[in-house]
């Protein structure tokens, strides 16, 4: 029996967990439910020894334990099965099962692979995964099989408590059913199982008990049997007014500036089509793994596409098919991760602000850069988006997250792109900066920029979007407008069901 009693965890500026109690019995499956940011991960990181709680204690079989490191969690028989299985790609299945404690060979520094393979076979058979050869390389087996290997590893470690973190998000229906069988088997063997998921269908199908978190607090706990789906949704998203007044300004939206036609990409996007109108803020909404980011990356040409096309209308032109590699030169794209592909961290604010329209600062023939004009524009931008810095020569790496994000915005405002794609525009940004960024987004849309907004924050979606398309499993399932854009509706549409991935 696993108990986490009255766990409280404070992060700078946010109470991530507020007096949360979790009880999980052996032989039962506990569903841990909540939207992104509800505190699920923080709670599990505390259990896994990655974070330390401020208050509260953890009991295993009524004995208090302290988790100071992942090693402690392992010692106490706690194992995590991750959303994306973690593994060593070129090593064999058997080596991955016994990664932490290889069997010693005849000579001390060698490992006994034959023995490892024999032992691994045993664990895999226990899971009913006879078809996985312990000798195969991890990179050669399917994602579902990798997950089985991860579970086998947990068993080999002697785990009594197994936590599944959204394990079905990249599985096929067949693999999912197989996984559920395994989880039930583990349950009957008396393991403590915690199952984290967004999908209501999965929870009612698989789990015995539930614990719902919302904004770091417990918003409901009990037995799954007899639970109404509507009640569960309320617990997840809270009682909010059914309809939030949508903005009163009705904009003239008829000129299509960007048209996406049946885009197919990778194994996620399966024919997505939509139109973006001038001055519109179009939200793309869906849970993690629904293909939101993949969709925008495919549109701008950063990811390969296998089918479909993008049409773009230039100022005063007509809607024409565009070579995808050229789209980024015409539009703006605030990426999901500013450190990875949003900023030049070691360059100053000026250079960052002018990066997307260098040509306009260059002399005609020899392309000398007019640094004075650059600095002047940078100073104007610093004022207009309110970046808090001593001067424009400050390096981007020295700014706070909120100010860094404003620099990314400044770069695109400076370019004056007719279409701006925003992927998680306020991730890791403080509340003050967030409000300023919202103001900026609304302002540029009113002035004629068309915006595509991808966000996992429902409030942001509702506040900003004129129209929202809902993605599920790489497909558009719904297109909502006006008063239908409200928190309850969006949450329900996104949670909709686990049937999106067949």
């Amino acid at each position: 029996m696993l108990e986490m009693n009255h766990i409280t965890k404070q992060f700078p500026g946010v109470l991530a967990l507020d007096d949360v109690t979790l009880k999980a019995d052996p032989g039962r499956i506990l569903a841990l439910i909540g939207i992104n940011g509800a505190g699920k991960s923080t709670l599990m990181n505390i259990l896994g020894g990655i974070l330390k709680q401020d208050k509260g204690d953890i009991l295993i079989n009524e004995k208090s334990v302290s988790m100071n490191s992942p090693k402690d969690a392992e010692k106490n028989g706690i194992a995590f099965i991750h959303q994306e299985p973690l593994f060593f790609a070129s090593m064999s299945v058997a080596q991955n099962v016994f990664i932490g404690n290889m069997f010693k060979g005849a000579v001390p520094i060698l490992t006994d692979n034959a023995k490892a393979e024999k032992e691994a076979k045993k664990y895999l058979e226990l899971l009913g995964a006879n078809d996985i050869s312990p000798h195969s390389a991890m990179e050669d087996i399917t994602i579902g099989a990798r997950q089985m290997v991860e579970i086998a590893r947990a068993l080999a470690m002697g785990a009594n408590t197994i936590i599944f973190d959204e394990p079905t998000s990249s599985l096929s229906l067949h693999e999912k059913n197989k996984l559920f069988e395994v989880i039930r088997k583990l349950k009957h063997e008396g393991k403590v199982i915690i199952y984290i998921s967004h999908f209501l269908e999965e929870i009612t199908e698989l789990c015995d008990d539930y614990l719902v978190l919302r904004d770091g607090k417990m918003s409901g706990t009990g037995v799954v049997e007899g639970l109404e789906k509507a009640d569960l949704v309320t617990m997840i998203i809270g009682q909010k007014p059914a309809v939030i007044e949508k903005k009163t300004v009705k904009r003239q939206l008829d000129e299509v500036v960007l048209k996406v036609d049946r885009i197919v990409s990778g194994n996620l996007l399966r024919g997505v089509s939509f139109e973006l109108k001038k001055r519109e803020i179009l939200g793309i909404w869906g849970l993690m793994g629904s293909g939101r980011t993949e969709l925008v990356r495919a549109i701008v040409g950063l990811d390969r596409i296998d089918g479909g096309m993008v049409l773009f209308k230039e100022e005063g032109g007509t809607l024409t098919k565009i070579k995808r590699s050229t789209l980024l030169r015409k539009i703006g794209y605030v990426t999901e991760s500013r450190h990875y592909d949003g900023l030049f961290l070691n360059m100053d604010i000026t250079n960052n602000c002018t990066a997307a329209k260098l040509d306009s600062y260059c002399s005609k023939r020899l392309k000398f850069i007019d640094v004075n004009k650059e600095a002047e524009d940078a100073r104007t931008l610093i004022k207009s988006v309110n970046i808090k810095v001593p001067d424009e020569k400050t390096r981007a790496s020295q700014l706070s997250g909120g100010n860094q994000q404003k620099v990314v915005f400044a770069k695109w405002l400076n370019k004056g792109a007719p279409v701006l794609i925003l992927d998680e525009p306020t991730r890791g940004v403080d509340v003050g900066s967030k409000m300023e960024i919202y103001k900026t987004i609304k302002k540029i849309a009113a002035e004629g920029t068309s915006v595509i907004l991808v966000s996992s924050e429902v409030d942001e979606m509702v506040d900003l979007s004129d129209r929202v398309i809902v993605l599920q499993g790489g497909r558009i399932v719904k297109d909502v407008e006006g008063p239908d854009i409200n928190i309850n509706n969006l949450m329900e549409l996104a949670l909709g069901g686990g049937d999106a991935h067949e």
Partner: protein
Amino acid sequence: MSNQTTVTNHNKIQTILSDRKKALDLATAAVAVFFVIILCVAVPNFLSLNNILNLLELLTTVGMLCLGMTFILIVGGIDLSMPAVLMATTIPGALFMSKTGNVLIGILIIFAIGAIFGMINGVAVAKAKMIPFIVTLSTQIIANGFAVMVTNSKSVFGLPDAFLFLGIKIGVVPISIPIFFIVAVISHIILKKTKYGRIFYMIGQNEETARVSGIRTDLYIFAAYIMASVYACMAGILLAARTNMAGATMVGNTMLTDTISAAVIGGASLSGGRGNIWGSVLGALFITVISNFINLMGYTYYVGLIIKGVLIVMIIVLDRLRNGD
């Protein structure tokens, strides 16, 4: 009030940081001065005009290669084939000139072959996304093979006078010295004043951000490899004109490490996005001085290598401490 405290704290940190930076700057300067003093004491004619001009003339080869390498390093790549390309381009050009006496076409041949090697590197790295180290290592082997094949491992002598003009002296000053510095100034202007230089830095700093910002990164990376080959050609031309010879031994085994070391001493980083022309010129000067010192002191080649290696490591450690990374 508390705001003021943070400001003072901030200033204090700044002062400490700049003090540390100053101390390290001083240390670097002190090492350099110390080194020059040792040179002057140990080598009686080190500071003679003749030796200095000799040094600068030697500098032109490693220096010219180092300028090209600087561009490549800034863009986040590396070109191991530069000295080999120097030979593989200069030798056929020289062979042609010595046979026909046509200097113009000879020089064109040099640059044309250089462009081909640059294109091979550029396409492989920028378009096929292969690892620069592996690509240019292969080109190096190809270029070396080509150089020996063309000459049948014999050297080419007897170059036309019109070509040897590039190796003459005006008064006491070899003409290659001003040519090198003019090229360095132009390189500096390209790198620091123009759009192209800015984009090279941007790509080296963060290629992903550059691509999202609408920059055709592959085109610029391709161009950088072409440039590196062009610099190798220029180095080869000056070297052949100075020595009236072109052959498979015209640059030494250590030329490649000398070139990369010079650029890194000058502030370039193997992880891209850093470096500048004057740093690289100073780095090349440093390498040349060490080689010269070893020569003048009469150490054997192998002892010389050890001394060189140790000094390079020392300078780089100091430099990294100073830049705080």
